[in-house]
């Protein structure tokens, strides 16, 4: 673990905008490493939240699962996977100074994320019976309850990720990031991938593991 020099520590207060009194490069590097560690610690914490939901699923369902539409499951999973790809392109675009890929990648990610969210709300939740008649409710039994809890908590994170993407997209267009300094983009990207990572485990737990009950 490289120790921070006291100079950089004093300047580290300045967030990603830098303190004018300190040598800017050192300061930015130290703060960047702090930020990365902080965000990963947050992921570790969140892992316990989503792990708790998975534990609830296995505790209450055991080797059973509700009958869910397999096509929808595969579809939303693929959409989210694709969004991780476009997000990665956006981040690499920024790293290599390719603003067009950065901008388009972010927008594509937001669109795909919205499609995922709508897929969950319309098809898994059956929120709009006019379009799709869902058969699960949160209140009937524990199958519906756990599906709504897991997808709901995950959807909340997808939603916050989309908001994050728009903030970063706008700042990016205004020229706040450079190929050398774009912690905001990196944070947004790895947050999005983390949300995808959660779904990687939620998808089999909800759709594939266990024998379906009717």
């Amino acid at each position, binding site marked *: 673990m490289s120790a921070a020099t006291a100079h950089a520590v004093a300047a580290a207060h300045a967030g990603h905008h830098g303190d004018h009194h300190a040598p800017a490069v050192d300061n930015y590097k130290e703060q960047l490493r702090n930020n990365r560690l902080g965000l990963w610690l947050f992921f570790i914490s969140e892992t316990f939240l989503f792990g708790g939901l998975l534990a609830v699923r296995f505790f209450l369902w055991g080797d059973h699962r509700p009958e869910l539409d397999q096509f929808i499951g*595969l579809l939303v999973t693929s959409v989210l996977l694709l969004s991780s790809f476009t997000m990665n392109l956006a981040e690499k675009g920024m790293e290599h100074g390719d603003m067009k890929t950065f901008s388009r990648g972010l927008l594509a990610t937001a669109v795909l994320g919205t499609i995922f969210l709508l897929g969950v709300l319309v098809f898994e939740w059956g929120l709009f019976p006019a379009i799709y008649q869902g058969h699960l409710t949160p209140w009937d039994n524990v199958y519906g309850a756990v599906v709504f809890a897991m997808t709901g908590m995950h959807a909340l994170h997808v939603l916050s990720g989309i908001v994050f993407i728009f903030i970063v997209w706008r700042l990016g267009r205004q020229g706040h990031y450079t190929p*050398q300094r774009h912690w905001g983009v990196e944070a947004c990207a790895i947050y999005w991938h983390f949300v995808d990572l959660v779904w990687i485990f939620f998808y*089999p737990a909800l759709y594939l593991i266990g024998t379906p009950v009717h």
Partner: protein
Amino acid sequence: MNEKRAAAYRLSATVALVLAVLTIIEYVAGVYWPSPVVLMLLALFKAVAVLNYFMHVSRLWTAEEEH
């Protein structure tokens, strides 16, 4: 510079492709041979790929260029 950029995009596409293939295998396994262990192992493989290639977990302990 453009060489590097193209290589980076290619790596990105390759990882996405591998993830897609794993997802299809997962789906087929889930429908025809739903073993929790196999399914969770597949998920674990996908997770490691995402952690390593998309989330750059190694940046936590390697001091590299500014990003």
